[in-house]
């Protein structure tokens, strides 16, 4: 029988009732007394010099309360990059200031250079239109293409940065000569040029922010669509506006998806706070979807050349990559970490590769900022690696399954120090590969291919064996690598007097189900019903200083902090029980919700201990504080390393080039699984996004920097008809060795492992169909690209 509660049970989500009945409370759902509306005036050119902004007419329009321009923020701080990356020559990266509102120049379409506050959104919009008309912006040539950006130093996104380069990073630079030598000596070298297509994250809830200020106390409050309210508070306080942290509360209420795009602090958040102070009234802003497309941090956008040196029988000897990574017009908070330490460190994948070297040049362009999007760097690494291995198999006539078996690390090789800086603690990559092969009925493929052929379709099968580094991140390590923050997390477990529990966590749920799963864990450890535990998140005035949710870190990092806080509760409970039961503390055991004197039937329930802590009449007050509340911070000892094997089957219509994903099999190793239902859901969502990237999603800027895919009519989001049912398995479990729950994280896996499986399947289908000249098609493999490839 599967468990029906606690760890490992597919407990139904408690969040769902409010969401299914329309009682969720997202930022834009809040109506506040005296509220005003902010509308931003955004650049309609990709690159321009602000000559003048005449606010007079707009300011006189009905309902207009205030107007802000870049001039108002020129003396406050900028929104910083969270990681300092050094170039190969040791020089630090170039860090242009990212102001609240553009000042001097606008640098991408959608770059806000003014904001209007009015009584209503409609009035603010009318005035913003007038203000745009009364602004003179001299258009400059746009810098859109990364190669041109680097090649033509005469045109600069930031006047002070001569070659539009943020940095030129080598990983690991000291190994470069050895890698070059190994590549030269390799019996066979495979080369693949590929593009990891730029994506718009598209959380279904557009970004929204409400600023409040109380002139009587000097307190600010920001309600915002954030994955990490404490990080946002830190950025606003310490870097941008200088509001002391103790005078600023940041609340991220129900948040409708993030996928990375809501990690970052954006200028709109600072603006509504500054405006609220000026007006003494709440100021609210909600993005329209077109603003989301123009200004949410985008994802991916790598142009890569990967080379793989190998023996004739497919043993990988060396890997070398050169990547241009787009950061857009400004450095978003994680933008410098994503193409470097979340990418280069994964370039040996789950394989034993002696020599690896990664070079990344990060380029400013007149496009929206680019930052971490579900997977963040790791999908780019996985895609490059899995595609080049597939190409190697084709060039050498080798079986892709056998080649992976030959190169995968074996269970006896852990812990494994990779040549690109990571220490993999545990894994069993053969097990997930074997499982996937079984799930996908690989031996029955030829029969299915024949059936497809009979229906006029080409069928192909693609494999991807992937690994990621999650549970972000050990602070001492990331500090050495350039991180400007620590990446621990924190939890407070408050046992209330009647024995129920409030748990305040630094992690933030924007769809992942923490309120359910975290409660399952605490309940299991304390031997009480799940319903006795409430999870509180998303409000800096209630929760301890934690770093929020991204990088598949919630359970591995915050979950560990929570577990440690529960352990402290149990330890204190034992002291109280020892006193009440007149026994030695060492003789007290805690099991099934009871503190018991070993070898006797003398016991106190958890509820009795809790009550005693708050009504301490019979209590060791001289040695023990009353109350039962504990906080723990946890800084992970290492990353966690989820891994798996994905097999995709596609059908290609030769006549139209249309690709259908007809089957998708995932065998994942996430370590221990707390709630199987939720883990499966996370994999479904990730794979859905990965199939979206592979088949349809594409962000197009024209040569003048206009975003051509700025709405759902132009940007093809995957719909229900574009994806199949997914076949998901998580039974191959090698628990993480360095956190007490043994968990690795599952949020990004699907988006990391799936794109190369889809593309490998498409190439397989075309090759089987006799189109042997087609060795690669860049994502998305739209009908026109596939048809063009077939017809050469």
């Amino acid at each position, binding site marked *: 029988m599967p468990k029906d509660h606690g760890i490992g049970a597919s407990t139904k*989500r408690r969040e769902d009732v409010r969401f299914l009945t329309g009682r969720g409370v997202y930022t834009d759902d809040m109506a506040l007394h005296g509220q005003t509306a902010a509308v931003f005036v955004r650049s309609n050119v990709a690159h321009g010099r602000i000559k003048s902004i005449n606010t007079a007419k707009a300011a006189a329009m009905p309902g207009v309360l205030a107007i802000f321009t870049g001039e108002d923020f020129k003396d406050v701080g900028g929104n910083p990059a969270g990681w300092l990356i050094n170039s190969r020559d040791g020089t630090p990266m170039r860090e242009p200031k990212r102001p609240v509102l553009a000042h001097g120049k606008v640098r991408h379409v959608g770059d806000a250079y003014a904001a209007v506050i009015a009584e209503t959104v409609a009035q603010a919009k009318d005035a913003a239109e007038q203000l745009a008309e009364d602004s003179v912006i001299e258009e400059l040539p746009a810098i859109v293409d990364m190669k041109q950006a680097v090649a033509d130093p005469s045109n600069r996104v930031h006047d002070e940065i001569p070659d539009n380069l943020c940095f030129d990073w080598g990983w690991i630079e000291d190994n470069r000569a050895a890698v070059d030598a190994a590549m030269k000596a390799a019996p066979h070298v495979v080369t693949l040029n590929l593009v990891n297509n730029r994506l718009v994250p598209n959380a279904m809830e557009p970004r929204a922010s409400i600023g409040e200020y109380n002139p009587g106390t000097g307190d600010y409050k920001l309600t915002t669509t954030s994955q990490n309210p404490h990080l946002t508070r830190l950025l606003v306080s310490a870097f941008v506006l200088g509001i002391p942290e103790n005078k600023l509360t940041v609340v991220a209420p129900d948040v409708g998806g993030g996928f990375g795009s809501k990690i970052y602090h954006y200028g709109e958040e600072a603006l509504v706070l500054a405006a609220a102070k000026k007006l003494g009234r709440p100021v609210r802003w909600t993005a329209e979807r077109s603003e989301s497309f123009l200004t949410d941090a985008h994802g991916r956008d790598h142009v890569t050349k990967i080379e793989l040196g190998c023996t004739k029988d497919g043993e990988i000897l060396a890997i070398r990559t050169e990547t241009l990574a787009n950061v857009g017009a400004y450095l978003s908070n994680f933008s410098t970490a994503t193409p470097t330490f979340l990418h280069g460190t994964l370039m040996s994948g789950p394989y034993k590769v002696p020599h690896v070297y990664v070079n990344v040049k990060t380029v400013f362009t007149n496009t929206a900022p680019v930052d971490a999007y579900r997977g963040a760097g790791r999908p780019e690494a996985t895609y490059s690696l899995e595609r080049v291995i597939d190409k190697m198999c084709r060039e050498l006539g080798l079986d892709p399954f056998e080649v992976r078996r030959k190169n995968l690390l074996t269970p006896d090789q852990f812990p494994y120090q990779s040549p690109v800086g990571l220490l993999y603690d545990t894994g069993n990559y053969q097990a997930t590969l074997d499982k996937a092969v079984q799930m996908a009925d690989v031996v029955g493929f030829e029969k299915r291919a024949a059936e497809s052929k009979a229906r006029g379709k080409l069928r192909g099968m693609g494999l991807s064996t992937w690994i990621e580094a999650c549970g972000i991140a050990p602070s001492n390590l990331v500090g050495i690598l350039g991180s400007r923050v620590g990446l621990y997390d924190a939890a407070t477990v408050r046992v209330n007097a009647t024995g129920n529990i409030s748990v305040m966590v630094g992690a933030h749920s924007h769809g992942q189900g923490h309120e359910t799963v975290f409660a399952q864990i605490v309940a299991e450890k304390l031997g009480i019903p799940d319903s006795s535990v409430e999870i509180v998140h998303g409000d800096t005035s209630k929760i301890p200083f934690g770093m929020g949710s991204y990088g598949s870190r919630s359970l591995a990092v915050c979950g560990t902090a929570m577990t440690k806080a529960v352990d402290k509760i149990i330890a204190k409970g034992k002291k109280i029980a020892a006193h009440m039961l007149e026994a030695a503390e060492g003789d007290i055991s805690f099991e099934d919700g009871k503190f018991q004197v070993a070898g006797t039937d003398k016991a106190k329930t958890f509820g009795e201990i809790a009550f005693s802590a708050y009504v301490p009449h019979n209590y060791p007050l001289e040695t023990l504080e009353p109350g039962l509340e504990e906080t723990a911070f946890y800084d992970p000892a290492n990353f966690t390393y989820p891994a798996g094997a994905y097999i995709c089957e596609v059908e290609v219509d030769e006549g139209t080039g249309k690709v259908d994903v007809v089957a998708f099999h995932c065998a994942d190793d996430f370590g221990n699984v707390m709630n199987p239902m939720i883990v499966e859901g996370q994999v479904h969502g990730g794979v859905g996004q990965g199939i979206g990237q592979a088949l349809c999603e594409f962000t197009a800027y024209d040569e003048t920097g206009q975003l051509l895919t700025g709405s759902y009519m132009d940007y093809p989001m995957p719909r229900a008809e574009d994806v199949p049912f997914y076949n998901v398995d998580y039974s191959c479990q090698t628990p993480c060795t360095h956190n007490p729950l043994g968990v690795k994280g599952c949020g990004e896996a699907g988006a990391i492992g799936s794109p190369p499986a889809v593309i490998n399947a498409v190439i397989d289908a075309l090759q089987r169909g006799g189109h042997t000249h087609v060795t690669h098609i860049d994502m998305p493999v739209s009908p026109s690209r596939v048809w063009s490839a077939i017809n050469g």
Partner: protein
Amino acid sequence: MTKVFMTVNGKAVSGEVEGRTLLSSFLREGLGMTGTHVGCDTSQCGACVVHVDGKPVKSCTVFAADVAGASVKTIEGMANADGSLNVLQQAFQDHHGLQCGFCTPGMVMSSAALLAENPKPSEAEVRHYLDGNICRCTGYHNIVKAVMAASGQDVSALAAE
């Protein structure tokens, strides 16, 4: 400004609207019923779907004044009379058919309209009908499963093949 009257979830309501006031704005700002969400402004994402006289419509693309006198049903009116989840809502919970919850109101309203038209839809019919509802979290797997389960079909064996 004109005054409009309509029935929302069985209750007579009225409010002042401009000609340009959208039904979604009237529900959310005029009536404070924020269960209906706006995700795109271009009639694509479907988070704003409500029923007008029994038919699913995207409330971000309908003027409030144009549905004066109509009977409107929103996500807030879907639960059973005792407040418990109805069969479709319960299926969404049972099968984990939602994550962040933002698209969910529209998904439920569209799915309810589908089941009213087609009480036992096939997988392909569910996927086709939900073409106008975008979800970024679930990859649609559990939404399709939930809708089929709500129609009384056995979904226990549904997987990739």
